[in-house]
Structure formats: structure tokens, C-alpha cells
């Protein structure tokens, strides 16, 4: 059964996941690469045109060899220089990796690219696509032979957790025993939900934002009721900010 992710457990016991690329994304990347190859071939054709003046035989021979080398070598050279990426893969944020998460070896890159001859049969990578669809790690034949996978690379940046930065007054902390009870009763999943709502609040529509924080505030108020003076005059969103501050910042 395919899960869309490949989990790797390191010898240190750490587990991390790699997001496997599906056949459609890979096909699109291959289409972009094909367009690049066609553009390169066209440019090459123009660049070699003056050779016709010297000898049409030699010019034709150079063209045949150059096209062949570009066709075979493009994937190999690009994936070697860009560590598992071609132009198409770069644009779609895909990367070829070793199936065990290790570094790619040149022989792996060569094998997976040479086996394109087989994967592209009978037309439009149908065979490779079918293998990609039905194998556990979304591998085409070339990937199976070379022990490689193609993964999606999400845009990973350090998350913006400025919502947790200190410096703002938190009325809930005036009631230390209730704050401690809140920490005790809230489950990690509930705390995470509140934190995520805060982190992603700017992505929400104003109406949805009000509704979401209203629901969350009602839920947390129910877990540990704070006295009226602690919550008077603060919005539901501010209330959740205070709750997250209590939960995630030790004092």
C-alpha cells in the first residue's frame, strides 16, 4: 500500500519522512525537461549551422552525435551537478535520492537515466508511470534498478513563532494556580491546535478567523474557567494567545 511518504529510521533511532513524488508531478517535470532538450537542440542546430559551409557531412555527423549526447547526457550531468535535480525537477521542487536517504552515487544516476529507454515504452513513459503508480515507493523501473526514489521538497523555512515572544501583558498569568491547572489539563494535541491557529492566523479570512478563535476560546474557557476580570476586554484571539503563552513558555 502506498502512503506518499517514505519513513527512514536512522541508527540513532530518529525517524524522518520523505515525501514521495507522484507520477503526474514527475511526468510534468519530464515534460519540462523535454522542452529544455528541444530548446537546447534547436540552439545547437543554429550554432552548428556554419559548419555546413565547411562540410555538410561533418556538420550532419556532429549534429547526430551532439543530439545523442544531449539526449543521454542531460539527465546524467544535471542530476550529478545538482544532486538529483534536472531543470524540470528544480522547477517542481523534486529531487532524486537514494532509497535509504544516502548520497547518490554516479552509477545510480547513470543507471536510472539509461533505463529511461525502457520506462518510456510504449509512449509517454507509460510503463514507467504504471510502475510509479503501483510500487510502494513510487519508483519507475530505472529507480528500482538504481535504488533511487524521487521526493518532493517542501519549502522549508524556520517557522515564524513570533507569537510566543515575550513582552506583552498576559492577564491569565495573574492567576498562577489556574495557569498551572491549564498546563496540567490541556493535551499536547490541543495545545498544538491553538499554536497552529496563531501561527496561521494571517492566512485566514477575517470572518473565518473570528469564528475559529471564537470556537477555540470557548473550548479552552471550558477546560479551565478564569475569573471574569482576567478575560474582560480581551478578544478571543488575544485569549488564545495568552493560553499559548501559558502552555509553551515555562517560568
Amino acid at each position, binding site marked *: 500500500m502506498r502512503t506518499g511518504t517514505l519513513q*527512514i529510521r*536512522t*541508527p*540513532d*533511532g*530518529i*525517524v*524522518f*519522512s*520523505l515525501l514521495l513524488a507522484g507520477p503526474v508531478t514527475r511526468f510534468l517535470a519530464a515534460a519540462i525537461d523535454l522542452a529544455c532538450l528541444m530548446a537546447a537542440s534547436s540552439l545547437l542546430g543554429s550554432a552548428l549551422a556554419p559548419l555546413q559551409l565547411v*562540410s*555538410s*557531412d*561533418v556538420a*550532419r*555527423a*556532429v549534429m*547526430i*552525435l551532439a543530439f*545523442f549526447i544531449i539526449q543521454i547526457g542531460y539527465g546524467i550531468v544535471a542530476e*550529478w551537478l545538482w*544532486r538529483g535535480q534536472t531543470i524540470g525537477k528544480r522547477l517542481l521542487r523534486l529531487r532524486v535520492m*537514494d532509497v*535509504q*536517504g*544516502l*548520497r547518490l*552515487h554516479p*552509477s*545510480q544516476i547513470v*543507471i536510472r537515466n*539509461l*533505463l529511461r*529507454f*525502457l520506462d518510456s515504452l510504449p509512449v509517454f513513459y507509460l510503463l514507467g508511470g504504471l510502475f510509479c503508480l503501483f510500487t510502494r515507493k513510487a519508483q519507475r*523501473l530505472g529507480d*528500482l*534498478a*538504481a*535504488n533511487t526514489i524521487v521526493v518532493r*521538497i*517542501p519549502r*522549508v*523555512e*524556520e*517557522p515564524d*513563532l513570533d507569537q*510566543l*515572544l515575550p513582552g506583552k501583558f498576559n492577564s491569565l498569568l495573574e492567576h498562577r494556580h489556574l495557569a498551572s491547572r491549564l*498546563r*496540567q489539563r490541556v493535551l*499536547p494535541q490541543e*495545545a*498544538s491546535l491553538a*499554536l*497552529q491557529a496563531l*501561527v496561521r492566523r494571517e492566512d485566514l479570512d477575517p470572518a473565518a478567523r473570528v469564528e475559529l478563535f471564537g470556537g477555540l476560546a470557548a473550548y479552552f474557557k471550558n477546560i479551565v474557567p478564569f475569573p471574569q476580570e482576567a478575560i474582560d476586554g480581551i478578544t478571543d484571539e488575544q485569549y488564545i494567545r495568552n493560553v499559548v503563552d501559558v502552555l*509553551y*513558555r*515555562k517560568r
Partner: protein
Amino acid sequence: MIIDLEKFLADERPAWAELELSLKKLEEEPNLQLSLEQARRFHYLYQRASADLARLMTFAHEPAMRLYLESLVARAYGEIHETRYKKEPWRPWVWISRTFPQTFRRYQREFLLSLVVTLAGSAFGGLAALLDATAKEALMPFQHLQGNPSERVAREEREQKQRDPLQGAKTSFSSELMTHNTKVSIFTMALGMTWGVGTIMMLFYNGVILGVVGLDYVQAGEAKFLLGWLLPHGSVEIPAILLAGQAGFVLAGALIGWGQRTALQARLRRVAADVVTLISGVALMLVWAGIVEAFLSQYHEPILPYLLKIAFGTVELTALFLFLAMAGRTEKENLRT
């Protein structure tokens, strides 16, 4: 219960940034060698990020942060745990004179299988042509070989007296041959992934064509022409196709794994470099064969005496045999023989 995220971030952020910087450097320069001190520091940073990831997953649910750390750990893991033997920088002469022939000899069984399948195909083709006059038309894909061999020989010898049939087209013909034959060889190797069935079919069919052509020309009394025409390039081209078949069988052997107790991944990993060596050697051989076929094989008597062409082909075949059998022999190989 829940991690102090603010403190956690403040403490760990510099270490993550340092790790990210090191990774970027390693990724941008694939051949970069770290000093012992740098390697120790890199390992420390990796372990620290791993521990942070474990803490985050245990004590706090923060998907974005987890994704960020997972990405860092995954990238560092690939660098740290890569234990496969790192060879010296690739040196073309060492590769040609040692690695390629040694690899060929390591898989003699696969080469023999390749040879046997081709010979079986030749026998089948020859027999088919002998027993059924219409077999030639059905089995032969090349139009120019469909006619009577003696008529072809007479026509080509006559025409060559008057003009060079490949004048102004030799170089391009040569490159067409090189690229076409290399594609066929790569395909033959790749078909190893069909548990070798596709490789067998390709080799057998090649053998069939050879058998039909061979018998046709011998029956027509044109054996000398046939040898003079085929040997100069065929003495390299046919072994190259056999080696491509050998590479296909190496792949198939790893896929099937008869008598091997290692996992499929490990088996394929073990033969990967050898398959690449064999197919690269094949490509090199086909470049030579393409040149010879366009510049020598297509010229017959009276321009080039058949005996000279046959002698040239025989020398090539002997040299190739000696090269593959003897070049770069190791002490271990000598003791075994």
C-alpha cells in the same frame, strides 16, 4: 508536558543555522573533503539536530518546526551515513586498462549465456533459412539484404569501380551507426529488468539475423565477401552487443537473486557500478565499430582486397579477446587460473 518553545528556539537556532551552512557547502561541492575537526563538528551538529527533532516530536506538536528539522536531519543523514567505498578520482586510462576488462571477467557466466543465446539464435536463423525459402523474407529486417547475395556483390564491386558510394556521407553514416547501435545496446542492457527475458529476446533475434545472412551468403558462394564485409566492424560490434547482453544478465541476476541471501536492494546496489562499467565499455567499442564500418567495411574489391579486410578483422578480434582476457589481471585472478 510541553516544551518551552521560546527557550528551545533561542538555544538551538544557532546550531541549526551552522548545520544548514555546512550542508549547503557540502551540497554545492560534491567532492569536498572535511578535515577531521570539521567532520567531528558536523557530526556533533547532526546529532544535536536529531536530538532536537526527537524532543520536538515527543513533547511538542509544531508541524512547521518538525518539517524544518526533519529536512535538516534528512540532509545531514545522507552525508553522515554514506559508508559506501569512495573510490579514487576517475582516471580514464585506469578505467580502460583495468576496471573494464576486470569487470568483464568477473561476470564470465553472464557473458557465456549471452554468447549461447546469440549462437542459438544464429542456429535457428540458419536452420529456418535452410528449411524454408520464405524465412529470409520474414526474418530479415534490412531491405538491402533481401536480394540475391551474388547480385549484390557483383553490383557493389562494379559500382565501386566507378564512384565512391559513400562519398560525402561517410562521417554522418558513421555517427548514425554509433548512435543507433549504442541505443540498441542500452536497450538490451535495460531489458535485464524483465528478469532477463527481454535481453534474451534481443540477443536471440540478433543471432537469428546473423544466422540468416551468414547462411544466405555461404550458400551463394560469397563467404569471402561476407567475411570481408562483416569482420572489420563485426569483430568489435558483435562482441559489444554480447557485452550489452552480459550487462543485462548481470542486472537480471541481481533482480532474481538465485542462491543469494542478500536483499534485492543490496543485490542491485552491488552490481550497479559494474553494469555502468560494462555498458560504458560497450559504448566505447561501438564508437570504434561505427568508424570502421563506415570507413572500411563498405569498401570491397577492387578498392580493398577481401583478404586484407579479413586479416584486419581477425587482428581486431584477437586483440579484443586478449585485451578482455588479460588486461589488468590481478594476482588473485592469476592464482585462480
